[in-house]
């Protein structure tokens, strides 16, 4: 059983305060970026274009919301850890009796919550352009939380692994960004050639976005149960790996 124990609440609160103190940079900026994506893509591709029988702008919104959730969840845990490592302040977390389970839980939950806050912001600012309400809100919430937790976990791994900011940037630019951008945020995979459709099925982020889109429209490229199973499996695997690394003190306790 995962032992959260003392320190979990304080570490979670600290991680939440950390991004909230600079909300202009950590929340407002990604919301603005997503809004610009929506305005530009919907203008270039036109309102007449239909995907799954939906106007393209409407189709795009859940993808943008989910992309923001995922990217910001990753950014939260990874940037917090690398900053603490570079400045040396991580020692304040390593000296107290905080279990590795509490360490993992606090960083990942805070990451997922930042993802949800940014996602909520993106959804709210896009409402005037595409007034959408989730048809299946629980499905949408489940995929947003799990997606945030997965990318938050990846952020923990990257933040612990990286010794310098450019290593973290490489992780973000060459892994996280392609996985999220090539996952059906801007398109339905049915519009891709057969080969690339097959490739997309190996991208776990595709299932997160497709499942989240199901939460909004009740239609998706693959069944939501399949997506949920893939996403849960992915989360379980990454969580176990990260907990094992933390238990060994990998790159934290020498």
């Amino acid at each position, binding site marked *: 059983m995962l032992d959260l*124990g*003392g*320190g979990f*609440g*304080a*570490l979670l*609160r*600290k991680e939440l*305060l*950390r991004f909230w*103190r*600079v909300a202009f940079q950590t929340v407002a900026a990604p919301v603005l970026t997503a809004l610009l994506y929506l305005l530009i893509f919907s203008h270039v591709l036109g309102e007449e274009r239909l995907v799954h029988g939906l106007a393209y702008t409407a189709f795009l919104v859940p993808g943008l919301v989910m992309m923001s959730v995922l990217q910001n969840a990753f950014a939260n845990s990874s940037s917090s850890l690398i900053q*603490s490592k570079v*400045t*040396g*302040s991580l*020692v*304040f*977390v*390593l*000296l*107290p*009796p*905080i*279990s590795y389970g509490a360490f993992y839980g606090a960083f990942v939950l805070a990451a997922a919550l930042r993802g949800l806050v940014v996602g909520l912001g993106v959804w709210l600012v896009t409402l005037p352009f595409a007034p959408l309400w989730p048809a299946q809100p629980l499905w949408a919430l489940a995929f947003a939380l799990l997606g945030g937790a997965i990318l938050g976990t990846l952020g923990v791994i990257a933040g612990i692994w990286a010794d310098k900011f450019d290593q973290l940037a490489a992780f973000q630019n060459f892994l996280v960004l392609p996985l999220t951008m090539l996952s059906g945020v801007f398109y339905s995979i049915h519009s891709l050639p057969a080969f690339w459709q097959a490739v997309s099925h190996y991208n776990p982020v595709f299932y997160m976005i497709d499942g989240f889109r199901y939460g909004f429209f009740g239609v998706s490229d693959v069944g939501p149960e399949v997506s949920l199973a893939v996403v849960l499996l992915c989360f379980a695997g990454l969580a176990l790996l990260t907990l094992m690394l933390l238990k060994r*003190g990998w790159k934290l*306790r*020498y």
Partner: protein
Amino acid sequence: MGSSVSPVAVPAVAFAGVVKRFGAFTALDGVDLEIAQGEFFGLLGPNGAGKTTLISCLAGLARPSAGSIRVLGHEVQGDYREARRRLGVVPQELVFDPFFTVRETLRIQSGYFGIRRNDDWIDEILANLDLADKADTNMRRLSGGMKRRVLVAQALVHRPPVIVLDEPTAGVDVELRQGLWRFIRRLNEAGHTIVLTTHYLEEAEALCQRIALLKRGRILALDSTANLLARFSGHSLTLKLSGEQELPASLEPLVQRRNGREVVLQLSRLELVETVLASLRQAGLGLEDLRLNAPDLEDAFMALVGAEASHA
């Protein structure tokens, strides 16, 4: 300042055969050391001696390759939660979290130890460290000396019976150093065990009851400060000779070092001053200056480190 009570027979800190290797390099080479409850203990050594590695192993930041470390009977790896609850560590580096005020920093740190509503104690620590008026100031806005004091405060939020200070006065001005000394002494008088690593020998001499000298990961000497001073150092006499005449041959065995016409003689007993002056008079040697220096830890330190180096 309160601290939880353990049976006095249990050492505050016990290192048993602690070895730490980094690849082929051995940073700690079988350290055995016990520090009693309530002691003010000094850990001295030149750069690279292994002091910080030893403290890191004690604090759980590093894992020993062999051996065990206990804090008030709790093993720092196997029983890490209980061990860390009893340990407060002031790190050497001046680190801080720039997002928070002093009070928030201390509240968060209390929370890490599972302590809520700790404001009364936080206020007391802040008052003792002359930080009360900075409680709501962001950490970024504090001077280096104030940040150093917040580090001390962070180590105390959970009222640890054992406090480790890793070079607490490195790079701080004389006034702050004196203030920190007074505060640490008060903590010790209140029953806290203090483990201090320092480069400043005068600091160890002024504060510590017992001292371990560490070099190349091994303990060279472990004794009370008074015994170390008595064993390894005596008075020294600095003479500045006038004219061209050389020192009488009978005094040559006492020469510790020379610097031009200045000669430093090592005296095992204070009465030897008379003998030296008599020899100088007999030889008709004039003096421009004469200084008698009291024994200090630096002599002991140099004697030990020098002796070890000559055996290496």
